[in-house]
């Protein structure tokens, strides 16, 4: 097969993996090498559906001996199969990197052989990039569950980030839809990675203490995972609390959610429908609230609420359930309290804290500071006076429905300096 055809086939098969971020790692080129990855991450293009193109995302091979119902590469699928060689992958990665098309490589694979053999191929590509090309860009390797600890540790020495996909929220769903996969094995790989990460942190601390050169850190960009939403019957509460415990137990950097896209009819799957994009969006908002706004999983969805509100973002939903928390006083409330006001994000809360030190704030100033007053006024007071009438949850609900405004990632701040 021509290289261009192979590239199209193995990129097409990898495209549904959502974890495109190249952030969270910082490294420079080796001597005589090229490339550096920066903690903020860089988008090199945007696809027609608005996804950031940052990494060259490919499968090493789309041949697979497993038969996961939701996957286009499953063994029973009638599709062309192909594999790269390490040389080809190194050549394409370097050509694209030098032209500034990409930040680095995201490499995954179908299980074309024993897990150790597949994992060894992925590690070999990363090794060549680092050792033979002096490549300092970003490398994300998928961990093949069931591969040995030794290979996993080698992978961590070359890669910025590793990920083992949890795929589905429960073992019951895995058994039904991905019968060859085992939740224990996947969680085992996550545990190994989090242990190796911890050891490597300790070791580099010790090396600093002794003023010795530290060994290469284990996957400095940490680990992430992904799960498919809507292929199995679990509710949002199950997913949100699973994500929360993955963050706590294994120190994951990110959990990615991927709305299920039917690839072929299968009796094990729900009947074909549009991908649940709204649901995926709400899950990302809930995730963002847990990671950056200090919400606990139980605050986002209580025992009585199985699913996230389709019309309200989860922050507004929490505000309506907790009227006693409001109004929040602009002049004196702590930063963490300000963050809980709908329409007021991290930037807005920081600006209020900075501005009220210097000047006496007026209501008109708030809108100019980037706060969405249309949403926030109902929850704020200024020197004891409410900025919006006190309305009950039933009246507020339509005013806050949709429109977003809440959980949006901040744009990264840049540091400028002349060379």
């Amino acid at each position, binding site marked *: 097969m021509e290289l261009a055809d192979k590239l199209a086939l193995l990129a097409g098969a990898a495209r549904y993996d959502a974890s495109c971020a190249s952030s969270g790692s910082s490294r420079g080129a080796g001597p005589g090498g090229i490339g550096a990855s920066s903690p903020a991450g860089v988008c090199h293009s945007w696809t027609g559906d608005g996804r950031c193109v940052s990494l060259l995302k490919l499968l090493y091979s789309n041949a697979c001996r497993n038969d996961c119902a939701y996957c286009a590469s499953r063994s029973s699928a009638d599709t062309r199969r192909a594999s790269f060689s390490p040389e080809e992958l190194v050549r394409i990665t370097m050509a694209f990197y030098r032209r500034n098309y990409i930040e680095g490589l995201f490499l995954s694979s179908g299980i074309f052989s024993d897990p150790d053999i597949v994992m060894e191929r992925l590690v070999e590509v990363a090794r060549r990039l680092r050792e033979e090309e002096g490549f300092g860009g970003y490398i994300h390797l998928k961990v093949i569950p069931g591969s040995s600890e030794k290979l996993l540790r080698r992978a961590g020495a070359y890669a910025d980030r590793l990920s083992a996909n949890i795929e589905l929220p429960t073992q019951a769903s895995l058994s039904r839809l991905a019968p060859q996969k085992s939740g224990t094995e996947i969680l085992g790989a996550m545990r190994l990675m989090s242990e190796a990460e911890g050891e490597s942190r300790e070791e580099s601390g010790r090396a600093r203490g002794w003023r010795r050169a530290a060994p290469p850190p284990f996957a400095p960009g940490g680990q992430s995972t992904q799960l498919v939403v809507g292929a199995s019957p679990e509710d949002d509460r199950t997913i949100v609390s699973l994500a929360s415990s993955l963050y706590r137990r294994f120190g994951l950097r990110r959990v990615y959610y991927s709305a299920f896209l039917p690839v072929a009819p299968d009796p094990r799957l729900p009947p074909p429908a549009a991908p649940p994009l709204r649901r995926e969006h709400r899950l990302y908002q809930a995730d963002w609230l847990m990671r950056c706004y200090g919400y606990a999983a139980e605050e986002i969805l209580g025992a009585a609420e199985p699913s996230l509100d389709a019309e309200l973002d989860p922050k507004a939903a929490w505000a309506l359930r907790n009227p006693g928390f409001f109004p929040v006083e602009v002049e004196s409330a702590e930063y963490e309290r300000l963050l809980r006001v709908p329409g007021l994000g991290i930037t807005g809360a920081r600006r209020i804290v900075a501005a009220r030190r210097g000047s006496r704030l007026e209501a008109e100033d708030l809108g100019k500071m980037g706060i969405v007053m249309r949403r926030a006024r109902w929850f704020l007071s200024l020197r004891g006076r409410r900025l919006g009438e006190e309305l009950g949850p039933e009246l507020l609900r339509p005013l806050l429905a949709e429109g977003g405004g809440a959980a949006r990632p901040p744009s*990264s701040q840049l540091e400028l300096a002349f060379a």
Partner: protein
Amino acid sequence: MSATSSAARAWAWDGSLESLLILADLALSAGSWPGSLRSPQPPEAGLFDEAEAGEPCGADPRAAEGALGRLRARGGPLYGLCLEAWMSEEGVEPQLLSLASALGRGEAGAAEDYARPETRILRAACSRVEREVHRLQGLARFSPRSDGLYSALLEPDHNVLPALLPHFARRFGGQAFALVDLRRRVAYLSRGGRIEALSGEEAIALGPDRSDEDAQALWRGYFQAIENPARRNPGLQKRLMPARYWKHLPELARIGERESV
């Protein structure tokens, strides 16, 4: 906006970054500035020597360096704001000098206080610069020239090449590269650890000198393969990556334009 009397004579500014740094340093140490800027008189225009004692005109590089050191040492975010204000080309220098004066008067936190109009206007211009810098870190497209140099053509809204240089110097390691601003006809060449600034024809001549169709075709193929037809949202794509940048992107430039290269 400024606490100084309107009688003070407007400061002369020649538009260069160096003299802006000097003015910001003056405003910072005086805690005031005259409230308006004027362009410097060409030397032959006036019968009398217009330059007053101590008034900066023209860019004395040594003076600029001293000002830069002081701004970095005690101006907090002021140095960074000077660079961005200048790169923005939006005429926000008066706001910058008002802010420098306020900081000079000991109004700590003024640079973060969005209730102040000068901070708000200045910061808005600076964040447009930051956004473009961040965008172009991703969207600059290099191609190898016959002399081995990797060269990128850009047409930025703001004068952001100086801010892109350190990023690409770090990224390219030892590899020589050039950034060419077609709109302002300036270029920077980074080779052997040194950076050279060029302008006019010399700058334009640093652009790509041959087709890079093989690599570009492979990249276009990749880009088409990752499209997800079920989720198409062209409005969002344009918002994230405004169409004015597309011309220099091999994956999005229109066929006709592509073939004329």
